[in-house]
């Protein structure tokens, strides 16, 4: 081994910044600010009996059936996902007995009396896929939020989500949300 005394060269730190930048960019890209978003729903409290039958008039219930093939039946007629929102809006806004002053509905005597009595019921099969369920649930929530937005615009000239707490309550009184997710039954298929 030749042991010549060589001067130790100084390490050039000029590229340090580049390396650090590379790492920085890597972390910037991989950082996921993991915010969870979802459709918020409230479940009914648990009761021992499967479900107590409430006295709701047939015409005040809007039944959305989803079978195991992910086909929709709304008020006993075939429907597609695109129809859900429109049909739900017509049903909620129908105002059959005329007690809702802010409604613009068709006032069909065979549809719901007023938005406070209107109940939407989703019934699905055990074989229904999650994706159509979420899509339908989303459309029903969408129907309510569109109606609420309309009222907010007419009454306060602003969007629903820009209203103050008190005003939101006023709008919610016009269109309270009643969506029930029934326990699955065997619908067939």
């Amino acid at each position, binding site marked *: 081994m030749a042991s010549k005394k060589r001067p130790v060269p100084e390490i050039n*730190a000029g590229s*340090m*910044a580049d390396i*650090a*930048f590379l*790492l*920085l960019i890597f*972390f*910037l890209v*991989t*950082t*996921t600010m*993991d*915010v*969870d*978003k*979802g*459709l*918020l*729903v*409230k*479940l*009914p*409290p*648990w009761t021992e009996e499967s479900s107590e039958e409430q006295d709701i008039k047939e015409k005040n219930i809007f039944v959305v059936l989803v079978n195991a093939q*992910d086909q929709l039946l709304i008020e006993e007629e075939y429907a597609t*996902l*695109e129809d859900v*929102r429109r049909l739900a809006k017509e049903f909620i806004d129908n105002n059959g007995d005329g007690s809702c002053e802010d409604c613009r509905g068709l006032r069909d005597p065979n549809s719901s009396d007023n938005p406070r009595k209107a109940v939407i019921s989703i019934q*699905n*099969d*055990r*074989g*229904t*896929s*999650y*994706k*159509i*369920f*979420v*899509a339908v*649930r*989303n*459309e029903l*929530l*969408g129907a309510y*939020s569109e109606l609420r937005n309309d009222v907010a615009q007419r009454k306060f000239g602003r969007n629903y989500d820009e209203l103050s707490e008190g005003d939101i309550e006023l709008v919610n009184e016009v269109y309270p949300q009643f969506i029930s*997710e029934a*326990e*699955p039954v065997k619908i067939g298929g």
Partner: protein
Amino acid sequence: MPPLSTASLPDIVFMLLFFFMVTTTMREVTLLVKLKKPQATEIQKLERKDLTTYIYIGSPKSAALGNEPRIQLADQLVSVGDVQQWVILQREEVNEAERPKFTVSIKSDIDAKMGLISDIKQELRKAQALKLSYSANPASSAEEMFKAYRLSIFGRQAVFLGSLHWLRFF
């Protein structure tokens, strides 16, 4: 004019680097199931992570466990019967004043069946955990959501056939 010294540039960058390294929260659970969330438009943000607990549903990643969708709580696959106990324990950890705001977020794969999810909903009702969120990715419009939905049914086939529409010119 003397040249601007860039000698402290690495220090500044390193400082930024450390900031990001420290604040980056790696996903606290490793997913054992395949998870493709649905798209939706009417979604709300879950503000408080400490008041939220997650239930993952999807078919297991490891092929040995089959294809049937399973439930994942924390770091293990469990059966429906374990959900109630677990949710109760999770809620105990939240301080008492904020317990009414306790929310369960279901992160489910789009191909899971509602049978399993309904069973979980029943368990949640038994555990008195009534605030529920169906976790979804934001879609910009309802049309986009429908498109994503159709894509998830018909898959690539539909996309491929759709891309052949120029053939009608021949």
